[in-house]
């Protein structure tokens, strides 16, 4: 038993080391295009697993993720932009004086983005989490829209519909994947703790969970706020990746993409969300081809089909929910025991031959 624990520990370290080597190598050797896609995957990994905590593990059908992301993105942008560019960008109405001179380093700003998003999550959760299922869905969707509308209208803070530009650019994969891996580890710890089991108990049967002494409201609020926290962090990273934000980025469509990741990976599986986040982000880029004009040897020109990618994804979501409801992983997680057992039995078979 202890032997196995040690092996698993070593394997975990080995995997982490391997990832570090890859990041170190990739930062210098991959083209900026690939790095960008990988960084985007990391952001979607954070979004996917944090939404899965709320949706898959706690069973709360919240569609507010894009709203919390929006908050994170704006907080991080406003905190890190240089006073000079703030003066240029806020030309409709100048930025409120309190924010004009602030310029924080990247990491504190990312944390702050998460904290502010979590705070909003907490405040939104207090009324919204009294609701369930589809009413919760429509209410959280509503809150996300309200957040977006407020952002559009508070021009002296957010520059309104014009959005923000010249946000400091962060390119290093260490930042994106480092934070993604920390998020995975934290969420895995949460999910396997007695809190995580309480979340699952609430998902399985609210009435029984409450009868077993679990305070439904505080646990739901906790799960929801944690989800919002990581959505805020992902929003901040998004801002640093594409260096500009505007309110239309955080439409409901965005939540739909995250929903797709969660459903495809399996509601209730962190592993599934990680895999499908990376897969879908890469597919998203690969499928860009179908939206561009195709030229057959200069003879025939097929015009591009903008929107085709989303058609494919919408169909994908429908097929998964109709025919393969448990998704890629169901509620299973990656674990070494399974692999070790496989290797063991393989070895034994080999020995007996």
């Amino acid at each position, binding site marked *: 038993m202890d032997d196995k624990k040690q092996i698993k520990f070593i394997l975990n370290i080995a995997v982490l080391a391997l990832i570090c080597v890859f990041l170190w190598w990739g930062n210098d050797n991959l083209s900026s295009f690939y790095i960008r896609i990988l960084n985007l995957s990391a952001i979607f990994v954070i979004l996917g697993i944090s939404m899965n905590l709320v949706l898959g593990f706690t069973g709360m059908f919240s569609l507010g993720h894009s709203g919390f992301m929006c908050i994170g993105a704006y907080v991080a942008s406003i905190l890190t932009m240089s006073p000079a560019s703030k003066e240029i960008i806020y030309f409709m109405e100048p930025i409120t004086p309190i924010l004009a001179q602030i310029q924080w380093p990247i990491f504190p700003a990312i944390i702050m983005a998460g904290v502010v998003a979590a705070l909003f999550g907490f405040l939104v959760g207090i009324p919204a989490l009294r609701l369930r299922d589809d009413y919760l869905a429509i209410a959280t969707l509503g809150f996300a829209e309200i957040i977006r509308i407020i952002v559009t209208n508070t021009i002296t803070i957010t520059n309104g519909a014009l959005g923000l530009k010249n946000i400091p650019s962060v390119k290093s994969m260490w930042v994106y994947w480092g934070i993604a891996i920390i998020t995975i580890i*934290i969420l895995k710890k949460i999910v396997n703790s007695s809190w995580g*089991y309480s979340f699952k108990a609430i*998902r399985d049967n609210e009435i029984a969970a409450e*009868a*077993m002494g679990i305070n439904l409201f505080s646990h739901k609020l906790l799960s929801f706020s944690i989800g919002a926290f990581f959505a805020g962090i992902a929003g901040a990273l998004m801002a640093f990746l594409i260096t500009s934000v505007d309110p239309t980025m955080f439409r409901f469509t965005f939540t739909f993409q995250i929903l797709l990741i969660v459903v495809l990976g399996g509601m209730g599986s962190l592993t599934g969300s990680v895999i499908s986040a990376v897969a879908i982000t890469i597919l998203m880029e690969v499928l860009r081809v179908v939206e561009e004009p195709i030229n057959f040897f200069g003879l025939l020109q097929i015009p591009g089909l903008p929107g085709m990618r989303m058609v494919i994804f919408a169909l994908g979501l429908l097929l998964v929910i109709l025919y393969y409801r448990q998704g890629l992983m169901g509620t299973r997680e990656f674990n070494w025991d399974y692999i070790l057992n496989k290797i063991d039995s393989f070895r034994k078979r080999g020995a007996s031959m």
Partner: protein
Amino acid sequence: MNEVLTTDHISMEFGGLRAVSDLHLQVYPQEIIGLIGPNGAGKTTVFNMITGVYKPVEGQIYFDSNNITGLSPDKITKLGIARTFQNIRLFNSMTVLENVMISKHLRRKSNLLEAVLSMPKYNRERTMHYKECMELLEKVELADVADEMATSLPYGKQRRLEIVRALATEPKLLLLDEPAAGMNPNESNELMEFISKIRNEFDLTVLMIEHHMEVVMGICQRIYVLDYGVNLAVGSPSEIQNNEKVIEAYLGAVDTDA
């Protein structure tokens, strides 16, 4: 008197309809009390009021001389009342052991941060809870299926698991909602023994709703009879068996369950 539970003339209404009216129930330590009555008599409503699912429109509920009227279900469980459900409500994505471990969450002393950081305090607590739950499962002969999915157990064992899960919250008072439902005479006999056994072992007081008369008459010290939300009679099993009002209520209503 040191009652464990007193419902001081409680009543419940749904849309103007009285489901329970003026019920005065007293339960003393170590007793096994039966709550019987025809279908729709308001028995489960009484449970729901005691456990905080509903707040009585009139009257007060005292547990261990605390007024618990209107407290939320989780708080009441924390104070020491646990229950099972008429229709089994196990956590269906979890194993037998995980179902029981849930009940230890309310006795936690560490916080989420300590759990995320794998602090020794949390790990020690978790190991302790694990040991307690395994011991409990051994006592009730479910240890061999600890790692199986709760919903894959046969019906009788699921019922027992629900009771064990309630026990794991470390209650003083256990409410059982039709624990023998759907059981054959053999199984109900086993259940009776099981209930008296856990009562003695865990120093429990038990209040149970039951239709199987042989179970109720077999192990209950006192029985409350409810009909249309009104307390028709209270007394020892033999007193109840010979009570004319009770006989009338049962013959006039359902006797198929008995």
